[in-house]
C-alpha cells in the first residue's frame, strides 16, 4: 500500500510486519524515531506478545538481543554512531555466536568532535565485526532490506545490519509501497533457530576455544559470510517475484554498459550521483554508476565483473580511515588488483556536509581528465586547514583541533 511517511516510520512498520518477538529500544539520534515507531505499534497490541524493552544502553540493547535470539526469539534493535561503538564488544559476540539478529544503523558520524549528522564512519568502523552489512539507497529500499535481512539472517544464522543514511533517509518523508502482512508472512517464515536454549535439549553456548580450534572457527565464520554472496541475489530475486521491486541484491548498476568512468558509491548519495551522471551523459560523457548494496561480504566477483569495462573508477565515499585514506576505495583497489585502472578516492559528506551536483560534476570531470589526485576531500576549505596546521607547527599548546578549525572559520582571533 502506498504511503507518504517518514523513513524511520517506514522502517518501523516494515520491521513490525516481520513479527519481531523482542525489540530493544535505546534512543540515539537519528534512529530514535524507528524505535519510537515500533514502541507505538507494540503498545497498540498489533504485535501480540512481542516484548518491547527500554534498555539502559546500546551495550545492553545488543546483549538483550543476544539473549533473546539465543532463546529462539526474533530479535531487533536500532542504533547509530556512538551507540554502535558502545555495543562493539557485543557485535563481535553476536556474530561469533551466530545469532540472526537484525539491526538498523542510521549512519552518523563518530566523535570526537561530537556530530549528529550523516556519514558512514559508524558502519565502516565495524566492517570487520562479522555482521552482514547492507546499505539502502532509498526509503523504499530501506524498508525492503529489513524484510530480506531477517530472511537472510535466519537462513545463514548470522546477524545483519541494515544501514540507512541518518536524517537524509530516516527523517525524509517519501512515498513508499508498504507490503501486506500476508506478503511478508509468505516471504519470511517463522524463526527456526539453528541452536537454541531449551531445557528439553540442554547445550552450552559460548565455550572458550583455544589455539587448537580457533582458526577453524574463524575460517567457518568467514566461509559462512561468503555464502551470503549467493544467497543475497537469490533472496533478492525471490523478493522481486513476490513484491515486484528490484530491492536489495549485491549491487545496482546504472548506465554502466558503455561507461569508461564508473562512479562507485553507497547509500542515499547515489541519487545525487545518478542525477549528475544523467546530466553529464546527456552531454555525451561516458560515465556510469555502480551502487554497492552489500558491503559485507565484499562482493568481489560481482564488482570486478561490473568494472570490467571501466577505464577509471571514482569511489565517492562518506568514510575516512585516518592515516590511510578511503575505506571503500581500498576494497575497490583490491578488487582491481592486476588491472591498470586508476581508482580515484573522493571523500565527501563527512559529518553531514551536503554533496552538491555542482561539486560532483567538477570532480567527475577532473577524474575523466585524469586530473584528479588519488585522494580528494570534496569541498575542503584548504585555507582553513593550512592556517591551522601552520599555527600548530609553531605553538606547542595550540589547543584542540576542532576548536581551532571553528575559530578559523568564524574569524575568531587565535589564543
Amino acid at each position: 500500500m502506498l504511503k507518504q511517511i517518514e523513513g524511520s516510520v517506514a522502517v518501523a512498520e516494515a520491521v513490525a510486519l516481520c513479527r519481531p518477538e523482542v525489540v530493544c529500544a535505546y534512543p540515539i539520534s537519528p534512529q530514535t524515531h524507528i524505535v519510537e515507531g515500533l514502541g507505538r505499534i507494540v503498545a497498540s497490541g498489533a504485535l501480540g506478545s512481542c516484548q518491547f524493552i527500554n534498555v539502559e544502553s546500546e551495550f545492553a540493547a545488543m546483549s538483550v538481543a543476544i539473549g533473546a535470539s539465543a532463546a529462539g526469539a526474533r530479535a531487533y534493535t536500532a542504533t547509530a554512531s556512538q551507540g554502535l561503538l558502545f555495543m562493539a564488544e557485543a557485535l563481535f559476540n553476536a556474530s561469533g555466536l551466530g545469532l540472526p539478529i537484525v539491526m538498523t544503523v542510521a549512519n552518523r558520524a563518530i566523535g570526537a568532535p561530537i556530530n549528529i549528522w550523516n556519514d558512514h564512519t559508524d558502519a565502516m568502523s565495524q566492517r570487520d565485526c562479522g555482521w552482514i552489512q547492507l546499505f539502502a539507497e532509498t526509503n523504499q529500499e530501506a524498508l525492503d532490506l529489513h524484510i530480506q535481512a531477517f530472511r537472510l539472517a535466519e537462513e545463514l544464522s548470522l546477524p545483519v545490519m541494515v544501514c540507512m543514511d541518518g536524517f537524509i533517509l530516516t527523517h525524509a518523508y517519501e512515498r513508499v509501497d508498504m507490503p501486506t502482512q500476508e506478503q511478508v508472512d509468505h516471504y519470511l517464515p517463522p524463526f527456526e533457530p539453528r541452536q537454541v536454549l531449551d531445557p528439553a535439549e540442554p547445550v552450552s553456548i559460548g565455550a572458550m576455544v583455544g589455539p587448537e580450534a580457533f582458526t577453524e572457527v574463524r575460517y567457518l565464520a568467514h566461509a559462512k559470510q561468503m555464502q551470503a554472496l549467493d544467497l543475497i541475489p537469490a533472496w533478492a530475486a525471490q523478493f522481486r517475484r513476490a513484491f515486484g521491486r528490484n530491492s536489495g541484491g549485491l549491487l545496482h548498476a546504472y548506465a554502466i554498459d558503455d561507461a569508461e568512468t564508473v562512479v562507485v558509491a553507497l547509500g542515499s548519495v547515489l541519487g545525487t550521483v545518478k542525477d549528475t551522471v544523467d546530466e553529464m551523459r546527456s552531454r555525451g560523457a561516458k560515465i556510469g554508476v555502480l551502487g554497492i548494496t552489500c558491503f559485507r561480504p565484499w562482493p568481489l566477483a560481482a564488482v570486478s565483473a561490473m568494472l570490467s569495462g571501466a577505464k577509471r573508477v571514482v569511489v565517492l565515499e562518506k568514510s575516512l580511515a585516518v592515516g590511510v585514506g578511503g575505506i571503500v576505495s581500498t576494497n575497490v583497489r583490491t578488487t582491481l588488483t592486476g588491472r591498470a585502472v586508476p581508482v580515484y578516492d573522493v571523500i565527501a559528506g563527512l559529518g553531514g556536509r551536503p554533496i552538491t551536483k555542482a561539486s560532483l560534476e567538477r570532480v567527475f570531470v577532473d577524474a575523466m581528465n585524469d586530473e584528479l589526485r588519488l585522494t580528494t576531500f570534496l569541498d575542503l576549505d584548504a585555507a582553513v586547514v593550512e592556517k591551522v596546521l601552520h599555527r600548530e607547527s609553531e605553538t606547542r599548546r595550540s589547543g584542540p583541533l576542532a576548536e581551532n578549525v571553528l575559530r578559523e572559520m568564524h574569524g575568531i582571533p587565535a589564543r
Partner: protein
Amino acid sequence: MAFQPVKYYQTGTFTVGNRLLPPEVRAVQSSERRSNALNSGHRACQGCGEALGARYAIDAAMQATNNRLIAANATGCLEVFSTPYPETSWQLPWIHSLFGNAAAVATGIAAALKAKGKAGVRVVAQGGDGGTTDIGFGCLSGMFERNDDVLYLCYDNEAYMNTGVQRSSATPPAARTATTTAGNVFNEGKNLPAIAMAHGIPYVATATIADLHDLEHKVKRAMQLCGARYIHVLVSCPLGWGHASDASIRIARLAKETGLFPVFEAERGELTSVSHIRHKVPVEEYLRPQRRFAHLFAPKLRSDVIAALQDIADRNIERFGLLDRPG
C-alpha cells in the same frame, strides 16, 4: 522468614542430609536425584568455593523449577573452568556472552520466553563479583529497575580471580591483591546487596557456601517470586585468599560468624530476616588463616588495622542484629 533449622536430630539441619531427617527437610544436595547442574570434569582449582556455590544454587533452582531453567553466565572463573572446548560441565541450557552483560542477556532470554508464552521456564544470570559489581553494574541496574524476571546470582570471591587476583569493588579493606599489594584501602568498595535493596526489587539475599540449607532455602524462595531477584553468595577461593584447599567452607563460615559478612534476606528494600551468628568469633580468627591478610601479622602485628576490621564486623552485628537470638 529466615530458614528455621530442625533441632535435635543429631545434626539437625547443619549437615547436608541425615538418614534420620525426613527427606523433604534434607538439602537438595543430599538427594541422589540432584541435577548436578555443574558436573564433574570441570577445571576449577581444588577446593573451589565458586564451583560449590554454583552447583548448590543451580541444583536448588533446578528443583524449584522442575528442571525448567536457563542460565546466562558472565566471563570469569566459573565460565572458563566449566566450558573449555570441547568440554562443558553444565547440565542445563547455558549461554556465555560477555563479561559485563550477563544480566542483560538474561533479560533477553526472559523476554523471549515471555514472547513465546513459555511461562514455566525460568532464567538465572550468574557472575563473579568483578562481573557484577564493576563491569556488569550498568546492565545489572537496568535489569533491576525494569524488574525483569531474572534471578541474578553473584558469586563473590572478593577479587578478579580468573585474571590473577586483582582488586574489584567487592574486595574487602586490608585484603592484599595483585593491584593492592599494600592491602586494599578502607572506605572504598560497593555494597551490592544494599544497592540491590535500594532498587526496591522483590527479593535480595546474601548467603555463604558454609550454610547450604540457608542458601537453598533462599534460592527456592527466590524462585517462588517473579521479577528481579538478587542473591549474593560469598564463595571462598583457596588460591586467591591463600588458604588450604580443604578450608573453603570453614573460612566462609568464619566470615559469617565474625559478623564481617552479614547473612540476611530483604524484600522490596526492607529487611525481612537475618541468619544469626551461632558462635561469635573475633575477626582475627578469620584473618589469620588467609595469606591475603598475612601482612597484618608479619613482619609486625597491625592491631590498628585488625581493630578497624573488628569495628566493621561489630557495626554489622549491631545493624543487622546478628546476635539477637529469636525469642
